[in-house]
């Protein structure tokens, strides 16, 4: 029988807590589950795989605004109607209407422009032999990819990046004090989204927004408000994550330069390179769920309403699922949970996989001997993580 005493405890709110730490690896070796100051954390791959998709758990962020003192207003209304937090048929209906537009076959026409964009950005700093990777590559690339997908002029990317980052403050624990800025940014983003919808309703084309305007199933379609909410979620969820994951990916390859050289020599391994960095060094280090009912699992009892964090990097490097967990872009691997899983599996994963694989392929083709060139700065190694500043020096090839 598992008792409280048998379960390791992890203080994941401690500023010094780190996913890449011996304490977390020791906890994983001892037990599949840890108690945390928020609830429980699932540590091993086998258990993440089973429980992440268990219908007795739901997405765990629905009450985030209320838990932070926000009970009404523009942000509250958007968040509580967001695909991210909807459940049951309300969720399935919108997901069913959105999913096809994000499938691989509809993304393929965009990929040549993603490749050109990666080359343009790299060529702008290549002769100097140095780059501040976050601001000179990852952020403009991630944001302009979204502009390309949505049909927003790429020159407007700094505005989109600013709005997405400001709305991102809503995920911080200072939400209440940031709320006026978050709501101003959301209102401005609503304006962008509503203009796009009106334009595609009048001038439909083969693009993503037109597909969503046209999305229809048995007579059901997205209302203008539902479509606007979804476009804002796409920008909110697609920018920071891709930017951060690219920085984490480059850092992983700097620690494994032989893998970087392998990628440069075998560009067809770029999709595997994306999977490996997301498995071993994901930006989303935990995925949050909440138990809907009282929950018994392998002698552990969890009360309804308890927060459960699924640790993605920890389960992605679990030696029981990955006997040699170090990054290896030639290895056959079981899947990781860097994109979450189940009903709430990341909607934009085909986009993210494609754009990051194009970026890593282009970077490895043109740059070698990457090294830190100055002072790098990082978000804490928990929650959503990544570099704030990543100054690099390199040799062009």
């Amino acid at each position, binding site marked *: 029988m598992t008792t409280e005493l048998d379960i390791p405890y992890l203080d994941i709110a401690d500023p010094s807590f780190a996913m890449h730490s011996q304490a977390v690896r020791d906890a994983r070796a001892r037990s599949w589950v840890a108690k945390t100051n928020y609830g429980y954390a699932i540590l091993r791959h086998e258990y993440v*795989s*089973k429980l992440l*998709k*268990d*219908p007795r758990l739901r997405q765990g962020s629905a009450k985030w605004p209320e838990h932070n003192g926000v009970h009404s207003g523009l942000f509250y209304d958007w968040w509580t109607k967001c695909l991210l937090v909807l459940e049951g048929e309300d969720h*399935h209906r919108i*997901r*069913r209407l959105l*999913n*096809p537009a*994000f*499938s*691989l*076959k509809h993304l393929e026409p965009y990929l040549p422009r993603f490749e050109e964009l990666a080359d343009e950005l790299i060529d702008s700093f290549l002769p100097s032999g140095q780059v501040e990777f976050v601001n000179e590559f990852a952020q403009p690339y991630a944001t302009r990819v979204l502009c390309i997908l949505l049909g927003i002029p790429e020159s407007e990317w700094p505005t989109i990046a600013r709005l997405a980052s400001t709305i991102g403050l809503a995920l911080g624990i200072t939400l209440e004090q940031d709320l006026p800025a978050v709501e101003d940014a959301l209102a401005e983003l609503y304006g962008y989204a509503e203009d796009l919808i009106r334009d595609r309703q009048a001038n439909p084309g083969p693009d993503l927004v037109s597909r969503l305007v046209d999305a229809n199933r048995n007579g059901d379609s997205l209302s203008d408000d539902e479509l606007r909410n979804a476009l804002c979620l796409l920008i909110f969820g697609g920018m920071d994550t891709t930017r951060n994951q690219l920085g984490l990916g480059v850092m992983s390859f700097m620690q494994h330069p032989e893998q970087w050289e392998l990628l440069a020599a075998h560009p067809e391994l770029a999709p595997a390179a994306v999977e490996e960095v997301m498995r071993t060094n994901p930006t989303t280090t935990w995925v949050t769920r909440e138990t809907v009912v009282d929950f018994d699992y392998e002698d552990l009892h969890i009360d309804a309403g308890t927060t459960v964090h699924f640790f993605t990097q920890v389960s992605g490097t679990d030696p029981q699922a990955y006997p040699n967990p170090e990054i290896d872009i030639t290895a056959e691997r079981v*899947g990781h949970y860097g*994109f979450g*899983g*189940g*009903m709430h*599996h*990341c909607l934009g*994963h085909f986009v993210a996989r494609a754009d990051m694989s194009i970026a890593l392929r282009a970077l490895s083709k043109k740059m070698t001997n990457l090294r830190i060139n100055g002072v790098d700065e990082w978000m804490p190694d928990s929650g959503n993580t990544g570099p704030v500043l990543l100054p690099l020096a390199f040799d062009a090839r």
Partner: protein
Amino acid sequence: MKVIVDRTKCDNHGQCTFSAPTVFRLDDNGILQYEENVDESLRDEVEEASDVCPAQAIRIAD
């Protein structure tokens, strides 16, 4: 039309159940169950399920 799910790839995310709910469903244990022989009238739904599968585990054999 015959539906084939590669169980070595399928990770039971359940996205297919949104596209073709009469063909694919998750059982009480969250495991995918599906019809193997499906009427031709459901081809569009099953193709959509195949397109949106995060693990790309579904294919149609004619």
